[in-house]
């Protein structure tokens, strides 16, 4: 029997989370070291997984299948293909860097890391699940700790409100999707939740067209699709830094990915029918999201709405249902995950020191923390779709796909690039350059003078920024993999 690498990746965080709860709460250093070690272990395994996926063979690899509730046709069934291997890697990276930058959390670190790790198990589980029941199961596991993490460790001003809003939105979304999922289960006549089997169930056109919106939109809520996006900026802002990183970096991909896996792959005819309408929603996401980001004054809200805009591009890429658009969307999920994790990490580091996120109250940070500045600028370039960075590699094919699907949509959404450039430049100019306010420069009763970030913070930022550049310069480290995953979906869609 082969080494059950996927199960190890999925359950390492959960087991570590439970172990952490056994360590006495005051031994904070041990807690942190344990957490970091577990995160590093999961990261190493996911890197190994990523690079040992065999492109020549294709399909689902590292498959594990155990019956779990045979009476209902539920099994523990996991595997990776070209689309989710990058996402598993993404989760590993965000988890590791998230632990690094949360080193300074002093308020109950034990519970914090425990919940964060349970969340990570949920996320890993959704990405690798090949059984629809498992997918929903892990999905709920991912949503629940989010509520606690925001409500307990979040920003005091809005945390209860944001946590409640987020949880309600996501639960309602998942219930709607679950209804669609159950409809598939019952009408397929196969008596199984196995998604690979359900792909061949041959649902009738009418069935697919009726149920597709339930499944797709239910999950797309978590992907931040307009008009169901407004839980997400609130949630980003209220969450503590590491949770924001997870939230925007990984959790939103969960929605997009599940919408793809359950919606598009199981109901391809429904997708073909509805996508021309879905793409209209994503235009709003892309352009309006960028526009709203431009007028925000709170740094975290800017990043939050920019996520809405960028996730709109992911949905837009999937909506094209063609090779270019979907490859772009697949890469964009990874690229945006890393980019936005980097943004939130950088913003968190500044907030911890300045105690404000209002753009006009900040300034001159480049001199104080050059690494943060450089990392943020690299993130900004990715966000603007600047060539040489991963954002370009991802967005270029998305736009190519959109050209083939609806040319006018490409032209309209192109405007978002200029809008994004203008707000990113404005932020870099005023927050990192500009003049630092007196009370931050020299300190006063409420502030320490601003100093540089810790070595661990720097390591986290360098990892994230390095990946963005690496993919931008050498797209071949990721694109062929995603392409192999997309080819499979195209087959389901009718062998284009």
């Amino acid at each position, binding site marked *: 029997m082969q080494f059950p690498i996927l199960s190890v990746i999925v359950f390492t965080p959960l087991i570590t989370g439970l172990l952490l709860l056994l360590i006495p709460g005051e031994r904070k250093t041990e807690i942190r070291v344990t957490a970091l070690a577990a995160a590093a272990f999961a990261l190493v395994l996911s890197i190994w997984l990523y690079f040992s996926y065999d492109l020549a063979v294709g399909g689902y690899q590292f498959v594990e299948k155990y019956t779990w509730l045979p009476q209902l046709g539920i099994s523990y069934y996991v595997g990776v293909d070209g689309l989710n291997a990058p996402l598993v890697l993404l989760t590993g990276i965000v988890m590791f860097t998230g632990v690094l930058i949360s080193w300074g959390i002093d308020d109950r670190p034990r519970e914090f890391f425990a919940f964060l790790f349970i969340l990570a198990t949920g996320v890993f589980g959704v990405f690798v699940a090949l059984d629809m029941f498992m997918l929903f199961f892990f999905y709920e596991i991912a949503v629940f700790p989010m509520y606690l993490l925001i409500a307990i460790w979040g920003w005091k001003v809005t945390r209860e409100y944001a946590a409640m809003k987020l949880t309600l939105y996501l639960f309602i979304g998942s219930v709607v999707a679950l209804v669609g999922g159950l409809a598939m289960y019952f009408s397929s006549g196969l008596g199984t939740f196995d998604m690979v089997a359900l792909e061949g169930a041959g649902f009738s056109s009418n069935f697919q067209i009726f149920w597709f919106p339930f499944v797709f939109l239910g999950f797309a809520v978590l992907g931040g699709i307009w008009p169901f996006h407004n839980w997400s900026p609130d949630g980003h802002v209220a969450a503590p830094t590491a949770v924001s990183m997870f939230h925007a970096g990984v959790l939103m991909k969960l929605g997009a990915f599940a919408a793809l896996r359950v919606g598009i792959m199981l109901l391809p005819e429904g997708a073909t029918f509805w996508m021309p309408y879905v793409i209209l929603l994503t235009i709003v996401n892309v352009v309006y999201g960028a526009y709203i980001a431009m007028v925000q004054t709170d740094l975290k809200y800017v990043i939050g709405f920019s996520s809405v805009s960028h996730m709109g591009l992911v949905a837009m890429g999937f909506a094209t249902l063609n090779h270019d658009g979907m490859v772009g969307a697949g890469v964009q999920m990874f690229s945006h995950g890393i980019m936005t994790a980097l943004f939130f990490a950088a913003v968190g580091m500044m907030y911890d020191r300045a105690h404000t996120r209002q753009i006009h109250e900040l300034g001159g940070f480049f001199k104080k923390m050059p690494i943060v500045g450089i990392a943020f600028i690299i993130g900004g370039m990715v966000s603007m779709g600047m060539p040489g960075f991963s954002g370009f590699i991802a967005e270029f094919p998305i*736009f190519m796909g959109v050209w*083939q699907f609806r040319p006018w949509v490409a032209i309209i959404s192109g405007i978002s690039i200029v809008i994004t450039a203008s707000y990113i430049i404005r932020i870099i100019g005023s927050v990192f350059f500009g003049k630092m306010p007196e009370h931050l420069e020299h300190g006063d009763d409420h502030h320490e003078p601003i100093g540089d970030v810790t070595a661990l913070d720097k390591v986290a930022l360098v990892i994230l920024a390095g990946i963005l550049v690496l993919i931008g310069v050498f797209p071949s480290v990721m694109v062929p993999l995603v392409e192999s995953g997309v080819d499979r979906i195209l087959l389901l869609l009718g062998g284009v």
Partner: protein
Amino acid sequence: MDFIANNLLTLILFIPALAAVLIALLPGEEKVLIRWVAFIASLFPLALSLFLWFAFDTSQAGFQFEQNQAWYAAINASFHIGVDGISLTMVLLTTILTPIAILASFSVEDRIKGYMSLFLLLEMGMLGVFLSLDLLLFFVFWEIGLVPMYFLINQWGSPKGERELWGGIKVKSRTYASFKFMIYTMAGSLGLLLAIQLIGVVTGTYDLTQLFLIWPDLVAMDNIGPLGLSGETIKLITFWAFVIAFALKVPIWPFHTWLPDAHTEAPTAGSMILAGVLLKLGAYGFLRLVLPLYPQQAHDYAGVLAFLATMAIIFGALSAFGQTDFKRLVAYSSVNHMGFVVLGIAAAAYAQGTEHAVISLNGAVLQMFNHGLSAAGMFFLVGVIYERAHTRDLNEFGGLFPLIPVYGGIMLFTSMASLGLPGLNGFVSEFLVVRGAWPVFTTYTALSMIGLFFTGAYILLGLKKVLHGPLNEKWIGHISEINAREIIVMAPLMVLMLWLGFWPAWLLNVINRAVEMLF
């Protein structure tokens, strides 16, 4: 040696980037070390491009030293680079000006590490545009050059000056100028991006050499590829997108307003490169993409282009005449001089296949090179006097010739080259453009030659205000002579100006072959 010969263009392209990374790793306090590393690193591409120059075979048509490697296989874009006579000239211009500009920035004290790294990245971006034979790669480098320039203006630009926006908000001039530069260029390149995507979707390739082959047949079809658009529609959309993007970059009147701001606020070496090389990217885009891909459209709209070029020449000169800021004067002179490049391109587009077209294009490319030399020289000289006087206001100078005779002499020489004095480089290229364009667009060319009169006027005005007239007493003892380093910066530029004035054939031989191939 084989390795160098086989990867010549790749080395030229990426040595600056490697040097930029190396400099970023050096400790920031070692200012002298950083300066010399940057300078010496920028000499490598120069040496290699000189080697390229002599190894280049002018008798052979098409692209040489080609290298082709898969880069982004999913959308069929590759790392395909090569040179022909036009790009070779531009590569040489870039690699000559970069070490000169780096030497000119030895007086920068503030965060020299970041400055030099960005400068070398900028060089890579510009070289990449000239070398690319793949549309996607072209776009990649086109955008990459933008970022370092933005930061150079934004961070190392002139510290003084404020600008009031709507609503009474005051921002620093350099913030305003860099933002304007970025947004103008981004808006232009958005069209470029969409057009490149459209071409990619329709043809399934980004490779220029392949594209040139299949393009004429393809656009003759009525119903192409997945879009079902007619060839004419696609041509029209992408033609205008390209034209607007390149016109913004040249810049062609009336899209030029970012230029005076950006030039004025940029640090001296930044202005040198901006005027010397970056403006050429737009003109190069016309030559490399617009003329070969859209001969018919280019012919149809050449009249408009010629009109705009004439406007640029006349209004550029008049605006320069009206300036009191020395640097703004030189900036507007760029609008004026680039007008001749565009006029040459327009004439060639209209009279394709005739000898007039060949002559005027030769003139245009030579003018690109010449303007690169003289604009870089002029901006440097403005920078030299600014560093000493801390003002650029023309009315504050006066009668400085006796105080700084060597500077005065160099200034006079460079101004004359810029003005187009026979015997110096500017004359040859402007003459060629005018000679080629006269039979094609007689009225516009005649008007442009009247514009040349204003060119003389503003250059003499600048000279008069700085060097001649009554001596402004306050400078006695406060202004020092140009120093040895600064003379070394100017020397190669002056030698080239003189050499090209006497014997332009060495450059024209290379250009001519490529220009004949263009149609």
